[in-house]
């Protein structure tokens, strides 16, 4: 045995491997991100956008009545659904369920899918009626979705807004969008 090597050298704990450490940190980050992601949004009925927009050729405005007039685009209520579904049930089982619900007078309350932070002011009129943006630009392929998504199809970040404002030479003043 080499006497120059101190006896306790053998007891020095081995350094944690960077790969293992990295994986642990990554797992933690994923867990935190998962915990803080937006909660899923459930809808009262499995609304089929594709069927309404493509097969029936309904305009977005038919249900989202205020998209050209107000900040909020608006969600349809039982009266809007009932204007068609009360007279006739569609082919699908879900459609027949809607008719049954409406006939029984059950109010249909759809839930907002996209919720902006409380410090953001957004007006649909400003963007759709004045700015002539297409719905899909911020909402993705919602118009062709078959089942209601539980989370927004497009993550709207400030960078998305700013890039578009820059490209279209619109106001970059913070208070134009921040409340």
């Amino acid at each position, binding site marked *: 045995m080499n006497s120059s090597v101190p006896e306790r050298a053998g007891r020095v704990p081995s350094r944690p491997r960077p790969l293992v450490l990295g994986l642990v940190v990554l797992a933690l980050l994923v867990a935190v991100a998962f915990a803080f992601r937006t909660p899923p949004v459930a809808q009262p009925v499995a609304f089929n956008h594709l069927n309404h927009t493509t097969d029936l050729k309904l305009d977005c405005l038919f249900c989202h009545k205020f998209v050209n007039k107000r900040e909020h685009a608006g969600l349809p209520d039982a009266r809007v659904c009932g204007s068609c579904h009360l007279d006739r049930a569609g082919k699908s089982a879900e459609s027949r369920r809607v008719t049954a619900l409406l006939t029984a007078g059950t109010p249909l309350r759809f839930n907002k899918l996209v919720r902006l932070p*409380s*410090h953001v002011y957004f007006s649909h009129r400003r963007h759709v009626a004045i700015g002539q943006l297409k719905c899909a630009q911020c909402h993705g392929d919602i118009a062709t979705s078959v089942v209601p998504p539980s989370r927004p199809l497009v993550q709207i970040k400030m960078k998305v807004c700013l890039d578009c404002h820059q490209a279209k030479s619109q106001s970059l003043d*913070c208070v134009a969008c921040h409340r």
Partner: protein
Amino acid sequence: MTRWGMVIDLDRCTGCAACEVACKSENNIATVSPEQADLGRTFSWMKVMAQVNGDFPDTTMRFMPRPCMQCDNPPCVKVCPVSATYLGEEGIVGQIYARCIGCRYCANACPYTVKYFNWYAPEWPETARHALNPDVSVRPKGVIEKCTFCHHRLQRAKEEARSDGRELQEEDFQPACAEVCPTTAIVFGDLDNPRHRVHELKQDPRAMRLMEELGTEPKVYYLTPRA
């Protein structure tokens, strides 16, 4: 280029404080308990300051409504380390609450003491909680707030005008204080637009600005009392 500003005629001000109330209601300004108010913890984006002159019975009272001066050379902006407060393109000194880190440098730099820090979470009586203005945020604990010339009204007015395909007029955008003033002591508009009343009023011989010697270039003018 638009430069929003205000002219306050001190001869017309009766000290009714309608501007203060309108401001608090418009901008979701938190109320505080009487005990807290005694400690000076009230928020007043618009404050009517009173001064008593002379001795009884020969006393007179003067009133001075004091909003944020919306300086063209704002000392608060220079010290903000995170650009939460900044001079906007139309002259309004913006305050972005989500960006504010609560360092309070700006509150100390402001010579007009118009910046308020939220030491506590805001509180309202139960009945008032349902009457908050949805266009204005509710400031959380730990951020600075101040008068913004009701810029949310400007955004709405611009949208309205653009929707109608016309130019923005003076009457389209008025802050709550100017709108409510019963004696029209508070006049608001574009200082650089000759069609707006403030353009002429600011050139009145009685016009002055607070602490002009500091070079902050306030956009709030006062018309001093004649007597």
